[in-house]
Each structure stands twice: as structure tokens, then as C-alpha cells.
């Protein structure tokens, strides 16, 4: 099997199409799925309506409660829906159906039912997106028992995680970064090439410091690590890929080696997932640490609009570099 270069949007579309060919009970629902747009203006569903028809590529009204609720009902009734809520900001309209129903049904009904669904919701600051189109809410769902949360950083991860999410019997919150939809990467043609949920990847090996991140922030972390080589600082970059469950083994192993940990996240730092990773590592690996664990994340403000303020808000490669140097000094 060869690799093809393609965008994240196309990679996920291929992954979905492969799973739909493999299993006739896989279907997708959401706004604009069968229009010429093919999804949230990024081709995620382009052409799928022609191959799979309107019963399996369901173009829905703007009804987030029902997009999510219907996915839950259809999942307990024996199918595997992929519900697209466009942006994490809009997905808040459907938090009830996701948190009160999808996450709880298996448990509160004593294991009588499973809820095998995927819910796509895009995260990340998109230029000019402002307060309601740029939020990253992964911590909300990591905090919710019953949910699995993934956030890919590369096109290959995007495809492989979508396939694993569809095959999982748990409800999976699939958080893709809006800036990465059109970013390109190498993607396998092999329909059985999956990315295992719960397994992180090492994007760059290093010996001085472990830099843990996910989604677009993993790419910025990698960029930072490459620049830091010039200063003879050897950073190990871990791309978590999966946030719940997260790959503690790999993070522990790396921190045991480097003795230093920085977690970089795009979302609001306060009570973010970085806090959980930092606390966990501090609790469990304290004797291995050469210095305090550090975090970098967004300030606790809404995402501003004007470029000056938006840049002030963003976690950038430069800021990551600064933080690493602080830790190394």
C-alpha cells in the first residue's frame, strides 16, 4: 500500500467512506452534508451523498439537540452514526444529549445498551473567529465519564482516529482543528491502517524536556523543538492524539527520561486538560522531576477578534520556546 498526500478534511472523508463501505450500519448526519459544500466548507463529505445516498448521508436541519439526540437513539438501536456538529461552539447546544444521554446510557441502564457513535466538533482559534467560533472545549468532555475524546494533529492521525472512533463501542468526541482541515499530510491507502485510541506518538525524540500537546499545538510544539535544537536544547515532543484515555505510559516514560515536563494547550489554561496531566505527573513521578512541571495555555478570556488582541491570546511557537527556555534555566 502506498501513501497519498492529502488534506485532513479529505483524509477523514476517506476514512469515513472506507468504514461506510465496510459496515452498512455506519452513517453520518449533520448540516450541509449533502450540499455542494460537502460539510463545514472544507470538503469533509464531498461526494459521499452520491456513493451512499440520502439515508446514510443525512442532510439535517439546524437542530443540534436532535442531531445529537438522534445519533444517540440510532446508536442504541443498532447503528453507528457519525454526528457532525460543525464547531465545538455550536456543539454546546447539544451538550445535554451528549453528556446526559450518550455518556450515561450504558451505565444508567446497567449495561443493557451501548452507544457507538462519533460526534465531530471542530476546535481551535480560526483567524477572526472571535468568541463563538474559536473555542476549544476538550476539557468539558474529558471531564465527563463515559466519553472518549480524541484530537488529531496530522492527516494520518485524522484518518486513523476517525476509523477507530467509528469501530469503538463507546461514544467518541472527535475534535478536529479548523486550521488543519486544509493542511496536507501523508496518509495510508490501507483501509485497515488504524490509529489506536489511547496511544500517543513521539513526534521528535529528545533528552532534556518532555513537551506534551495535542491537535494543532502538537505541530507548534514540534516547530518549537526544532528551533530549540540550535540552542542545544533537546526536546521530546509527544502528540497525545487521544485525550481520554491518554497515554500515561508514554508520558511517564518520557518524563522519567527527561525529568522535565511542559504541557502546551491552545484552550484556556485554567482547569484545562494540561492541569490534569501536570497534576497526575506531579503526583506520580515527583521523585523523577528535576524542576516544577509547567503549563502554557490561553488566558481566561473569551477569544478576542482584533488581530492585536487575537495574537495576544494565542499560544504561539515563540511562547512555547520562551517557556521551554525558562524551564531549562
Amino acid at each position: 500500500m502506498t501513501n497519498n498526500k492529502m488534506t485532513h478534511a479529505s483524509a477523514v472523508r476517506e476514512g469515513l467512506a472506507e468504514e461506510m463501505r465496510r459496515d452498512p450500519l455506519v452513517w453520518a448526519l449533520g448540516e450541509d452534508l449533502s450540499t455542494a459544500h460537502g460539510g463545514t466548507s472544507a470538503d469533509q463529505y464531498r461526494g459521499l451523498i452520491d456513493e451512499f445516498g440520502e439515508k446514510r448521508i443525512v442532510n439535517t436541519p439546524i437542530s443540534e439537540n436532535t442531531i445529537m439526540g438522534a445519533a444517540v437513539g440510532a446508536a442504541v438501536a443498532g447503528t453507528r452514526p457519525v454526528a457532525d456538529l460543525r464547531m465545538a461552539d455550536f456543539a454546546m447546544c447539544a451538550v445535554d444529549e451528549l453528556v446526559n444521554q450518550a455518556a450515561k446510557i450504558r451505565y444508567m441502564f446497567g449495561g443493557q445498551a451501548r452507544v457507538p457513535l462519533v460526534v465531530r466538533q471542530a476546535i481551535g482559534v480560526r483567524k477572526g473567529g472571535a468568541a463563538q467560533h474559536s473555542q476549544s472545549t476538550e476539557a468539558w468532555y474529558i471531564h465527563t465519564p463515559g466519553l472518549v475524546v480524541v484530537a488529531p494533529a496530522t492527516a494520518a492521525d485524522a484518518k486513523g482516529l476517525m476509523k477507530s472512533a467509528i469501530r469503538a463501542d463507546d461514544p467518541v468526541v472527535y475534535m478536529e482543528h479548523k486550521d488543519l482541515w486544509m493542511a496536507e499530510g501523508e496518509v495510508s491507502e490501507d483501509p485497515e491502517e488504524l490509529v489506536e485510541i489511547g496511544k500517543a506518538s513521539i513526534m521528535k525524540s529528545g533528552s532534556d524536556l518532555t513537551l506534551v500537546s495535542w491537535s494543532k499545538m502538537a505541530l507548534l510544539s514540534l516547530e518549537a523543538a526544532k528551533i530549540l535544537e540550535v540552542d542545544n536544547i533537546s526536546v521530546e515532543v509527544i502528540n497525545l492524539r487521544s485525550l481520554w484515555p491518554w497515554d500515561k505510559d508514554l508520558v511517564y516514560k518520557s518524563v522519567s527520561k527527561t525529568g522535565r515536563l511542559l504541557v502546551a494547550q491552545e484552550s484556556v489554561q485554567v482547569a484545562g486538560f494540561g492541569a490534569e496531566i501536570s497534576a497526575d505527573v506531579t503526583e506520580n513521578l515527583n521523585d523523577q522531576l528535576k524542576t516544577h512541571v509547567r503549563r502554557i495555555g490561553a488566558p481566561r478570556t473569551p477569544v478576542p477578534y482584533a488581530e492585536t488582541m487575537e495574537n495576544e491570546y494565542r499560544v504561539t511557537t515563540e511562547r512555547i520556546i520562551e517557556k521551554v527556555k525558562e524551564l531549562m534555566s
Partner: protein
Amino acid sequence: MKAKNSTNYPDRILEMYKTMTLIRAFEEIAEEAFDAGLVNGSIHQYIGEEAIGTAVCANLKRSDYILSNHRGHGHAIAKGADPEAMMKELLGREGGTSGGKGGSMHIADFSVGMLGANGVLADGLTMGVGAAQALVLREENAIVAVFVGDGTTNRGPFYEALNWAMIYKLPILFVCENNTYASSTATQTVTAGPGPVARAEAFGMPAFDVDGNDVCAVDEIAGTLIEKIRNGHGPHFLHARTYRIKGHISRDKMLYRPEGETEAHLVNEPLLKCKDWMIKNGIKQKEIDDISSMAYEQIKEALEAAKNAPFPDKTLTYTDVQDLGNPYLGGSS
């Protein structure tokens, strides 16, 4: 009460009377258990509304699905759930319908197509349309019935789900049980417009009104609508007028209710109405009394069995959360 021109109709009414009595017995004995401190949570009783769930489910097959709300005991029994397992669930014991993990508000029995009572109003509607979509995708010849109350017609997802059911022409019956109270508020005082039927009709959905205390009438209209749904005519809406004889929950003192209101409704309650019909149609009083005493006997035994059942092991707290990232036993992760 109306009667169908069918020779075996009295038998059908007797069967439905049995179910209604079983529900009534369950609710009354569950309240006794609650008062005795045996129920860990609260219970929402279906007393006075038994005819609706009973008659709708009498027209459903085992392979059909129902979705219920917080007042779900009657729907579960009518769809065929085991009252003993339900009583164990109320008492939080081993052998409960959800193994003691859900309680009264989360009674479910997937083996009979009862996809769950629910603690959040209107979620049965959105999940119900999804279940109907799954039936279509799986090419199953089955339908979905969703039970909601009058209060739910003021939640947004009610409208989303009705619209959704119409645009995809789904095999689903919406049953609005109008018991006049939304928690402790008289629904009429917080609801604009002419009512649920008009609201459903706004979507172009065929909608009907029925005396929900008349089991024969509900049976007749539900039978007609369900047949239409089975034959591919899309969603239908049934508004059944009734009265919640008890409070919102079992410990509700009903201070908001005008004096004498409950008593005035007792003459119209569905079991009494059904009994009158049966006597007028030649069914012997003794036969009716026997049904009643058998039902109470069965539920008393269910309560005894529940009291004697062990509590679930505390380690079960950690099971059935999720496959990936399941919590460690006793840990915080």
C-alpha cells in the same frame, strides 16, 4: 366509553384492565415502599394515567420501541418489563432492571423494546426519531412510540424532533400525555396558544385528541394511527387528556392544587371508567375483583423479593462506564 363491534372485544379490554391494574398496584406499593424508607431516590407515579400507556402498548409489537420520560413505570410495565425487576431497581438491589445503577427514573428493558425512562424532558423525542431512523436504515418493519408530557411541549427539542420526523417521514407515534401539571405548575398558566394538537399540526403532522382516561378510546385511535405508521404514512401525534392524581413526586404535598380538585377527577379515573364499561358489557364483578387481587398479590410478592435481594457489590460502581479509558477500581482516574 365506546366499544368496538368485535366479539372478542371484552377479552381485549380485560387484558388491558389487567395491565392497568398491575401498573396501579405497582405505583401504590412503590409508594408504600418509599414511605417505609426502602427506596433510595424519589418516584414519579403514573396513577390516573394508566389507560394511555396500556392502550398504546397494546397496539405495539415486542419488536417496536418505546421511549419514556421520568414518569415511566407504567410505560415499562405496559411494554412487558418485569415488575419484580423494576421493584428491585427502585430499591437499588441486585437483579434490578439496571442492576441498581439507574433507579426509578432510568427503568429500561431493551429485551422488550423499552429503551428507557429518562430524567431529562424531551430527550426521548430526539432519541426516538434517531431510533426510528435506525429502524429505517436496518430495514426493520417496526415503529417507535415516544411518550411525553404536557410540560415537554414547552421545550425546544420537542419542535426540532417533530420537524425532523416529518422531513424524513419516520415511523413514529408521538404520544402527549396531558396530565395538566408540569411539575407543580398548572401547564395552562405557562403555555400559549390552543394546545399540543395545534402545535403538531403546525408541522403538517396528523394530530388527534383523545380522552386519555378512556382505555377503549385510546386503544381505538392508537390502533388506527399505528397501522397508518406501519403502512408508511409517516409520523402521527396523539394528544391524550388525563389528570395526574398524585403529586409530581411521591413526597409532593400538592400545596399548589386547589382544594377538591383531585377528588373531582377521581370519578373520571381510568380504572373506574373501565370497570363501569365491563359491568355494563356483562363481565362479572368477581372476575374484575380477581384481576385486581391477583395484581396486588403479584406486586406484593415483587416487593418481598426486592427486599430479600442483596444490594449490589460496591465494586460494580466501576463497571459499564466505557470500554476505552474505563476507571480503575477505586481510583480517581
